[in-house]
């Protein structure tokens, strides 16, 4: 590890700390419907949207109505994104003439679900598959809408804690509109202009062919990248314009853009912790959640960075300089430190943008992103998703604490009873089951070669790596799907009907079987009375609670996924140090002898 390397991690963290309160105050104003400094410029737009869509700003919804609106909105989003993609060959702004055949029904379904669920898993590579119109009108749009929907759910759940003896938790359409108009759009505009000034491209031109110095022809890709890049980061979406995502020099050209992109990922999730404290009228509660997230974030970096810096002993033996660390799948301008930091941040959040290829990380370096995703991305997390995920763990944590002392658990003055705990467990079990069952089936399933469902044949024939790392590619894919992350151990080719459809289902389960139980919790909590704090109340703003909450996240994750992780990155770590190599994939797993 180098001094500048450590310094950029520390400075990044301090910038996030400094931005949390101002961002949180602004978000609180927006979602409480108070006047912000942007109202003189944007209030007309908000009002116009309500008017044209027939939305009544002052009308509130019960949790069932709120959920129904969200589901309906998502269905419309999936249908529209699907139709647009399938029709791309007949639509304008398609200078490379990408036709409909490359956008197969299963791929279009996967991509539509992927962007609507804020996952942004990509079975395709943008520069060879998707027209500019689709990038803008289908994919960029869902970057905004899925992000705004996620924040809306977090705010609705927060209202459940903040209110008492009411039936309603807000209005989905109003929360959605405010998120887009006052939060995501302004941040994206500023971000896009900054990124473009640093070299991120933004045009509608066809690709340019140049003659290289050695006389060969090289295609330089073009497109409206900056506008998608900025919302991809602030909305924690993570779906790249190009296949290489934020490693591509046209998406992330300099160390400075890299630093700014990292801050953009954590900006809203960190601000939401402050919003939580503010709305429940006890900012210490928000900071306790912030502290838990910070602790887990720093632990992750402290594992990944040294693991990547130590490099790959197998390559060192071949004569490579060990001091430069593991550089396979990394860019020189970012190096080991900024790449390790990015890998941790993008999986702490449910962002999924990558500036290094996670598939080529060292086993322990890759274990942290995988584990981050599997614990539900609650370390700052996705916009909204991080806060509501962490509140779910808070419910589990006070439940465990309540069992230990034999008292009805309370959190933020609300009694946590059967219904809340059941709903929290439903969300946790649904995602875990989806990840583990789909990974298990894909590891053993066999199809006829060149058939429809999976042309390569067996589910493992789609992998680049074999042995434990091959298994990790499958496990990472379904974890990323259910976690709505979108990053990948990219050696797996998921653009076949089998993977496109199972991953699509995986993403839907991870999004909606998480959100709907939590909205039910919100409704149930809002109806409850706030109980008075007594000497017997377990305080949820101190270091003891931070430790308990962080412990709950890690222990629930470890208990659920340890066997799978042991078969993947953990055994791979020991095999790497013993110099064991794995050749091409043959047949089905496990094949590491």
């Amino acid at each position, binding site marked *: 590890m180098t001094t500048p390397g450590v310094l950029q991690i520390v400075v990044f963290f301090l910038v996030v700390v400094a931005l949390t309160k101002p961002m949180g105050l602004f978000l609180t104003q927006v979602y409480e419907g108070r006047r912000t400094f942007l109202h003189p410029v944007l209030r007309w737009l908000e009002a116009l*949207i309500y008017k044209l869509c027939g939305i009544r700003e002052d009308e509130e919804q019960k949790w069932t109505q709120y959920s129904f609106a969200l589901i309906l909105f998502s269905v419309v989003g999936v249908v529209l994104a699907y139709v647009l993609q399938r029709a791309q060959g007949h639509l304008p702004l398609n200078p490379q003439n990408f036709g409909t055949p490359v956008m197969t029904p299963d791929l279009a379904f996967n991509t539509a679900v992927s962007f609507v669920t804020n996952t942004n898993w990509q079975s395709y590579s943008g520069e060879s598959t998707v027209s500019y119109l689709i990038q803008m009108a289908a994919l960029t749009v869902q970057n905004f809408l899925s992000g705004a929907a996620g924040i809306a759910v977090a705010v609705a759940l927060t209202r459940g804690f903040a209110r008492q003896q009411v039936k309603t938790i807000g209005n989905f359409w109003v929360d959605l509109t405010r998120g887009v108009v006052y939060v995501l759009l302004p941040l994206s505009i500023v971000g896009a202009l900054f990124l473009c000034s640093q070299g991120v491209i933004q045009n509608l031109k066809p690709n*340019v062919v140049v003659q290289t110095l050695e006389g060969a022809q090289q295609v330089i890709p073009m497109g409206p990248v900056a506008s998608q890049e900025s919302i991809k980061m602030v909305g924690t979406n993570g779906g790249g314009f190009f296949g290489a995502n934020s490693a591509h020099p046209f998406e992330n050209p300099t160390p400075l853009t890299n630093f700014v992109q990292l801050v953009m990922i954590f900006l809203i999730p960190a601000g939401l912790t402050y919003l939580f404290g503010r709305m429940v009228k006890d900012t210490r509660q928000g900071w306790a959640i912030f502290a838990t997230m910070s602790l887990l974030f720093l632990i992750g970096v402290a594992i990944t960075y040294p693991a990547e810096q130590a490099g790959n002993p197998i390559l060192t033996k071949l004569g490579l300089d060990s001091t430069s660390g593991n550089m396979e799948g990394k860019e020189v301008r970012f190096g080991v430190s900024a790449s390790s930091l990015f890998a941790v941040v993008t999986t702490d959040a449910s962002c999924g943008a990558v500036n290094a290829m996670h598939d080529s990380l060292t086993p322990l370096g890759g274990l942290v992103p995988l584990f981050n995703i599997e614990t539900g991305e609650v370390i700052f997390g996705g916009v909204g998703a991080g806060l509501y995920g962490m509140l779910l763990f808070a419910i589990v944590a006070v439940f465990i604490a309540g069992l230990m002392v034999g008292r009805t658990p309370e959190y933020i003055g609300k009694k946590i009873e059967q219904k809340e705990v059941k709903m929290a467990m439903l969300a946790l079990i649904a995602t875990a089951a989806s990840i583990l069952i789909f990974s298990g089936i894909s590891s053993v399933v066999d199809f006829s070669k060149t058939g429809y469902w999976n042309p390569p044949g067996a589910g493992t024939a789609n992998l680049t790596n074999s042995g434990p790392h091959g298994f990790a590619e499958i496990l990472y894919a379904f974890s990323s799907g259910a976690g709505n992350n979108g990053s990948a151990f990219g050696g797996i080719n998921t653009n076949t009907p089998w993977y496109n459809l199972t991953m699509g289902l995986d993403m839907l389960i991870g999004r909606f079987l998480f959100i709907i139980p939590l909205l039910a919790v919100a409704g149930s909590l809002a109806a409850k009375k706030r109980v008075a704090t007594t000497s017997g109340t377990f305080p949820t703003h101190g270091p003891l609670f931070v430790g308990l909450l962080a412990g709950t996240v890690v222990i629930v994750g470890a208990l659920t996924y340890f066997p799978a992780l042991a078969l993947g990155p953990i055994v791979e770590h020991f095999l*790497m140090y013993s110099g064991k190599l794995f050749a091409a994939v043959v047949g089905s797993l496990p094949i590491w002898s």
Partner: protein
Amino acid sequence: MLKEIGPAIKITLLLTLLTGLIYPLAVTGVTQILFPHQANGSLVTAGGKFAGSELIGQTFAKPGYFHSRPSAAGSGYDGTASGGSNFGPTSQKLTDRVKADVDKFQKENPGHTGPIPADLMTASASGLDPHISPDAAEAQVDRVAKVRGAPADQIRSLVASATESRTMGFLGEPRVNVLKLNLSLDNRYPLSR
């Protein structure tokens, strides 16, 4: 609850218009005026023709040029197929590739002693990495100087002027832009044809 269908469809279409057309087109318009060079790919010209982008790496195989990193983008630095090798650390293919590249490097740079800079033997994440580390450039100076018939110190000073340091002293890593370096080589010490 079915009355929500109207708002669902209307708001989706309206926000598609706002965030999917007006927003990206407005950003395109503004950036084309404010930052036309960057917005259009930071292209560089040589002899009046486009010779590449200063942000996108190129394949360099001739001994008189500084070589880029191995690339997994298509058959190498293919702008339509960005990506890494995705080889895990225990991949046989990774070891085979690195072994072959190490042998080639040692043959091409017989003067080099000690460990080889890792970035020069590993594929980048994008397959389009425009940079190599200063160490990786230094490892090739003797070879380039010999082919170009120039003193090694002169080549070294070209490398130094093509080297970018860490932003604000702590962000990212020091790096050499290979295309810019090779362009300045061609200017100062043209290869005899």
